[in-house]
């Protein structure tokens, strides 16, 4: 067999924390994305509703989903890095 990581990785004590946080944030985003798909499927006319600056719900929600993904990504990275720094002090740092 020719598997296994291409580079040597040290232990990472933050794996469980990161995995749990990742799953939580995934479900948060999936819910908001699912709501967007549901509105478009069952009542797309609502998407014409003007929200602000003359923009309708379709554009605000669509742009919002894109921006929200970026923001969640930054938040996720912040907490993961913090936890890695905290838990991997005495290891070589699997995540480094």
């Amino acid at each position: 067999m020719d598997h296994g990581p291409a580079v040597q990785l040290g232990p990472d004590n933050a794996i469980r924390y990161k995995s749990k946080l990742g799953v939580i944030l995934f479900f948060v985003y999936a819910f908001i994305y699912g709501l967007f798909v549901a509105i478009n499927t069952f009542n797309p006319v609502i998407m014409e509703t003007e929200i602000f600056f003359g923009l309708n719900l379709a554009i605000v929600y669509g742009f919002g989903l894109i921006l929200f993904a970026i923001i969640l990504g930054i938040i996720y990275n912040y907490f993961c890095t913090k936890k890695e720094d905290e838990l991997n002090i005495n290891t070589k740092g699997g995540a480094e």
Partner: protein
Amino acid sequence: MIYTASPIAIGVFFFFVLTVLGLSFYFARQTGSSKGYYTAGGTISWPVNGVAFAGDYLSAASFLGICGMIATAGYDGFLYSIGYLAGWVVALFVVAEPMKRLGKYTFTDALDSKFNSRGIQLVAGISSLVISIFYLIPQMVGAGALVTPLLGLPHYVGVIMVGSIVILIVATAGMKSTTYVQFLKGGLLIVFSTILVFSILGKGLNLKPGDNYHEFKKIEAVLSGGSVTSIADKSYAVSSQVKSGNLDFVKLDKGGVSTWWQLTGKEGNWTLTEVLSKTKTEKGEVLYNGEPKEAEKFYSVGHMTKIVVDGKEVEKTGPLGPFKFFSVIQKSGVSLFNPVTITDGEDKVTIWHQKNTAGNKILRPGLKFKIERDSSITSKLNFVSLMLSLFFGTAALPHVLIRYYTVPSPKDARKSTIVAIAAIGFFYILTLYMGIGAMVNGGMDVESSNMAAPLLAKTFGVYLFAIISAIAFATVLGTVSGLIVAASGAVAHDLMTNFLGMKLSDSSKVKAGKISAVVVGGIAIILGILFKGMNVSFLVGLAFAIAASANLPAIIMLLFWKKTTAKGITASVAVGVVSSIAIILLSPSMFAMYGWNPADAVFPLDNPGIISIPLSFTVLVVVSLFTQKSASKTA
């Protein structure tokens, strides 16, 4: 449409290609080992990898396909942008770090890391190969579509050219050169798309998009018993009249040239409006607006019919802010060009007639996807299926997954994914401006929606057109390189080395990878020529559906369900690949492609995700539960 090659465009294009090839030869000496060839030695820094991710992912489908789809179907095209980007959330939160931690060169390595199962090696290798080839088709189609306006060469030449260049890039320096080609292309694409969007906003909206824009004539007509008996402009003579549903078209002759017009109006007030037409005559001649293609009478189109700013109708707006641009379109009207096919004697005629569409309908879903009053349960399921496939497909694409092995650590994998999300997300926001910009600025070739972005750039001058076209071409090069690396890894590493157990030295592994790259590149060239004319974003949607069905259930369950067995994964991947492809082949879109009636399609959905993804999950769970004993015995 007929295109004339621009020397500037040719110059920019060759400069880019030579740069890319120079990079490949420069990196060639650093890729003597299999680790260097498949993963660039795991030495790419996270910011570079992040932009390369964007360069890899923002394919012809994103740039050409989505812009084209938005230009023809408004917000419905933008739904692809949203779905493609949302998929990165799955990649970041669920897949990125574990993939880096578990795998070596390919996605199959990660999937098989706990089991050493030949079944997994076989099905996952085949799955990677199939998905990569499905994804390659639209890229090659995009290359062919681009080479015509850029270099004035036929479609097949573009496909062969891209195929050959990419084979050279991959075969010389593998993942290292592929990474830097993607980095370069990703950066350029985002920078010049931003410039294009600034140009759109700076120009604002105008009822006449440009000085050279064709003005569609209108002639008053008199009817008797539903037939046109006379028209106001006596230089034309009525030749024939054909009805298609509730649409009425009239052929007029002038100076030996026949043109088609749409009849609209009501009792006592009838108008003929010029349309675009393509006629295949009995003798096999093809006429564009009644004349041979070379006469250049077939125009790029797209204009506004009404512009309303702050409640007042105006002819033009002047520069607009990014929000004002959409708020004005929302309250205005746009002319969309819808195709209709009619028969006139022995001639087959395709007509693109204008349909005045309210801006508020263009900027919300419903023009392409049937989700409104005219919808059925099937059409709604089709929509949900597509959105599901886009969401779950990204994190399962082999060419995306292999990029996790090019960085030194899981932390770098995570950070590079965030850079990718930011870069890709920003670009996808730009697609809505570019697509709508093409729709209202005469940037539409009605025969090929894929040309919207370059044609839009052309309305701002030949320099921007040359650069945007060359970048679009580079877009294809970058993505195809990544796909071919993924496919060659699947063949040489997963199938030859792991599944077949061939004892290859490190240098032989690299050689096997390079030979595989040449073969896969050859297959991609043939398929790119065969699939000419299909919207590239639609084709990519299908590749996503196969990836989401075949790979994602296995990845998710491996990571989060301890009872997952090797047989469960093998069965799930196999069922995912087979079921999704079977549904695609039996779908209405494919029936239309075969030249059959789409209504006779065996399966009513175009996108298989809503059936094949849950099916693949279910198979994995059931088979894993039934094979617990054998799993514990093996352990």
